[in-house]
């Protein structure tokens, strides 16, 4: 039995006519790094804002360590947020930013100074205390934003796409750093992203959101190798969804076979081929109109558009219809 620190019960939220959250349930374990993964507009940021108290749920309950905080004001919740684009106070120095929450809590000057120093060294920005946010790079601001929220030692730290504004190289580096920070702080992280690579690299568990519902909640391995729904399979694994006899199968593009005699039982036409990231991607159309993408490292380059051939696959995972409905609802 895991220790549940935060529980979301049947949370519903609508903005105007749009039902953003359709009654979600989620249990978050103490000390875990859980990621809410989904494309934009799926409701992940709204979920986070409801936990932080910046948005009021229409229905349902938010339970933090057994206490119902559904309608508590943001400043009375033991959770803190690292905002998208950081939201550092531009009129305060780095040290004042980090010390803001401590000052509100009327801690002594000495204690504030000491904790700010501690946080600065934890995020490896010793000596930056007297600078202003506009004198920092994006990556540095990011660390300060995390330090500002984490210094209060909240029960849960909420991170809203904190790496979204950084370039790819810095993002990879910060992923490792965030993971290290989470380990050394021992705080529960709820992390939001639309980047499946980020989610898989950092998370203990991933909750995949689509149109206001969770499609699947599980470890990165479960999500990647045992997708439950077609949405999860295509969003996380870049898988083809193949329909046969009223059933849905997920077929990863790297598992699509070409020219191999035994499994290649499907007649197909080459529609497109392209190179991306050292891979050849070939889009096939099957005789029943379904489309399948295959990706390979540099081989089968002779395949020409319009060519007829037989394809097949070894690994096909049966999945359910996606829960969140299709994009046409938007």
């Amino acid at each position, binding site marked *: 039995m895991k220790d549940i620190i935060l529980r979301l019960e049947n949370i519903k939220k609508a903005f105007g006519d749009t039902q953003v959250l359709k009654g979600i349930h989620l249990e978050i374990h103490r000390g875990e790094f859980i990621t809410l993964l989904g494309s934009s507009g799926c409701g992940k940021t709204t979920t986070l804002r409801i936990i932080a108290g910046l948005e009021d749920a229409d229905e349902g309950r938010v339970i933090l360590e057994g206490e119902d905080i559904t309608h508590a004001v943001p*400043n009375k919740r033991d959770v803190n947020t690292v905002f998208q684009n950081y939201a550092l106070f531009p009129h305060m120095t780095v040290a004042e930013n980090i010390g*803001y929450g401590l000052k*509100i809590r009327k801690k002594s000057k000495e204690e504030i100074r000491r904790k700010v120093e501690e946080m600065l060294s934890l995020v490896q920005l010793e000596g930056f205390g007297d600078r202003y946010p506009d004198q920092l790079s994006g990556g540095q601001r990011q660390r300060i934003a995390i330090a500002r929220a984490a210094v*209060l030692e909240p029960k849960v730290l909420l991170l809203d796409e904190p790496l979204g504004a950084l370039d790819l190289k810095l993002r990879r580096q910060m992923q490792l750093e965030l993971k290290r920070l989470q380990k050394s702080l021992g705080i529960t992280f709820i992390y939001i992203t639309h980047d499946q690579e980020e989610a898989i690299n950092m998370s203990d568990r991933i909750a995949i959101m689509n149109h206001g519902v969770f499609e699947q909640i599980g470890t990165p391995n479960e999500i990647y190798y045992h997708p439950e729904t077609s949405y999860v399979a295509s969003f996380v694994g870049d898988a083809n969804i193949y329909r046969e006899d009223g059933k849905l199968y997920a077929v990863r593009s790297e598992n699509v076979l070409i020219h191999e005699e035994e499994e290649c039982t499907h007649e197909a036409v080459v529609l497109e081929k392209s190179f991306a990231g050292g891979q050849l991607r070939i889009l096939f159309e099957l005789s029943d109109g379904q489309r399948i993408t295959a990706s390979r490292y540099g081989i089968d380059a002779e395949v020409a558009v319009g060519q007829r051939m037989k394809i097949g696959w070894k690994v096909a995972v049966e999945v359910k219809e996606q829960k969140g409905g299709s994009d046409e609802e938007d």
Partner: protein
Amino acid sequence: MKKTKGCIWLVMPMYIFTLIFVAFPFLYMFLLSFMSRAKVWGVDFTFTLANYEKILDPLYLGTFVDSFKLAFLSTGIIVLLGYPYGYFMARMSEKWKKRMMLLIMIPFWTSALIRLYGWIIVFRSNGILDKVLTGIGLTDSPLKLLYTYPAVVVGMVYGLFPFMVLAVYSSAEKMDYRLVEAARDLGASSVKAFFTVTLRLTLPGLLSGVILTFVPSMGLFFIADILGGNKILLVGNVIQEQMTKGRNIPFAAAMSVILMILTSLMMALYRRVSGTTELEGIM
């Protein structure tokens, strides 16, 4: 280098305009303030400091003090009314922003003088205000508000209120509201978040609003004239009277110079506090 040259030629007309219509007249006024009064009309070009000595006369010094008092009072009221108006307007939806802005702009479509005459109708004995107040039984007899100090204050507040709203609005509009959310998230109550984040970040707008209301309220002689009768004398009224009835142009010039120095000091103070030379939303 060529590019820079082209730019200079483009801004030249503005510099020439400023030189002819701002710098030269001011220099002329400054020089006039050290001249003597001519016997009948005009200026006797002999150097004197008498004009400045005359300002130290309690009679004139008093008008400076009165003007400052009135300006402080009006500006204070305008801050209390205009700041919330401008701030909440910035937080509204686009549709409501336009409506609220229209409410501010409509009065500008009518001459300020005509609008002031409107206030006379409101304030005069047995005017609209008296009728409403006696009608609902708050007062028995007419209040005789016209040509009193409160009437002038109302006129000042009414006339200068939009400048405060616009200045605060443009500052509040630029403020990232997520900073307030961040403050709340870090434990600040809404009041605490207002004073530590919102107020501090809209301060440039508030301060330029103060400048834009305080400075003109020292010189808006016609408001004091129309709503205050000749009972309330402000620096602006004295300058105007010295120019016209008193025909003492050098003295009027000297008073104007002092007024300009005082307002420049205000601007310098603004620069010190807000750390910027820009007047939010206006320049």
